[in-house]
């Protein structure tokens, strides 16, 4: 999983590219999240605009990150999920867990910023 990390209006935007499949990359992602927590940056947005595939291991990474953030007083919101990922979240009922937004601006606004 390749991703970029940027900051905007007091939010950290993690934008993965390509496939989210889990595997060894998950460890790097966990470490990055821990760094954000250590720096007290806990408003995280997962921008899925450039993700075209996510399997169950990928969902697992999202859930792991979400639970870590929540346990540390933060959150992960999702935005720009395509039709397939939206349906994946719906079928797995995870749309009731993640705060999902149609675009980045609305996710930033949901944190009370922007």
């Amino acid at each position, binding site marked *: 999983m390749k991703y970029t990390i940027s900051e905007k209006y007091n939010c950290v935007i993690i934008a993965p590219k390509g496939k989210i499949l889990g595997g060894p990359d998950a460890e790097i992602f966990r470490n990055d999240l821990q760094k954000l927590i250590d720096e007290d940056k806990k408003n995280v947005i997962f921008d899925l605009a450039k993700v075209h595939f996510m399997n*169950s*291991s990928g969902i*697992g990474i999202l859930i*792991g990150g979400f*639970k870590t953030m929540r346990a540390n007083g933060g959150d992960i919101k999702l935005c720009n999920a395509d039709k397939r990922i939206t349906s994946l979240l719906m079928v*797995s*009922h995870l749309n009731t867990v993640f705060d999902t937004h149609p675009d980045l601006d609305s996710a930033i606004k949901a944190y009370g910023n922007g």
Partner: protein
Amino acid sequence: MNDFELKYRQYEAENRRLKKAVGELSILNDLAIAISGSLDSEKIVRAIISRSIRAIGAEQGDITMVVEDKQNPTRTLVRSMISSSNHSPLHLNQNLLGWMQINKKPLLINDPGTDERFRNVKWDESVRSLLCAPLMAKSKLTGILTVYNKKGDGLFDESDQRLLSIIAAQSAQVVENARLYQEEQAYQESLREMKMASGIQKKMLPSSPPEIGGYAIDGRNLTAQSVGGDYYDYIQMDDSKWLVCLADISGKGMSAALLMSNLQAILRGHVLHLNSPSEILKHANIQLYRSTHAEKFATVFLGMVNTKTNTLQFSSAGHEYPFLMSLDGRSRRLIANGLPLGIFDMCEYEDATIELKPGDSLFVYSDGITESMNQAEVEFGEERLAEELVSAGADRCEPAKLIDIIFNACFAYSDNQQLFDDMTALVLSRNP
């Protein structure tokens, strides 16, 4: 000194040199014989060290194997030590390993305390002198042969260094071959373990479909690796009730397989005392939550078929919605909402009940089917699956045939490439 005396001394020196060369050759010959016939790297390493100690006249010796590890480049794998005296074992320190990794040439130190190259190194007091030679295989440093403390308080000299270098050069490839052989053996062993695990797991799946009055049922599971994380089951609850399950553990391979067997035991246990799919899921979730970490979860579909009332009561933990096809070719999805098992400690699940009419056919599947990819990396997808199910026509009522049709469609679609994910399907049809 007269001519005769000069000649005599020259011959004597020559004689000494030749004797020494013969001695060295016999050491090398002896070493070659000792190590060439064995593939046991521990034996080989000990043979090299003991002969080096004897040939050089040192008190101790060891071989430190160097393995390539990007995260920890100086990690040492094996350290084998032989001592000809009662000293406590001496070791190469990290500074020396580092020096050898950079320089890859013999190193002779007769007075460690004052050696300029290792000024800030704290030496073990009992190290009076040492001599190292690199073991090189295909231009890579694979190990370091070291002898410590020349016997009788002497010093190591150039000829010791030359001899140890020759021993190291002669031994390196043999040591490397033995190491590779051992790696290969370990790999074969893990393959055997995998094969056994795969056999055990296959036995956990139903060996043949049960006889259920008025219904036909079958299931199939193909794993992407030797073992997998998908699972299906049919469990009889009483004379007229059967529970059909299909579950998919996130991830693949051994970790998923271990959780799969755990989940199967949990579900089979709860069937004995719980009466509805949603209750079974609720309790299974609590147990799975306690035995997994956040990133691992299971999606499960449970359907309880009642052959007296011809109804199906079902519940789902985040699993793909199954298809229900009727005799006239219409199809619908069975939707029940619930989170996958193992993510949160307390979750509620809902039940829904439908009537099963003659000729109705239930198709439950794992995402390995819809996520089969073609060469262009486009998924098989739910729409194609729905089309295949509809076009199967009357074959829908023969579970094994329907599974054949769908699996073959997936294989054809993905051009028979290696499976990426486990594929599982279960079909329950009410006889027309």
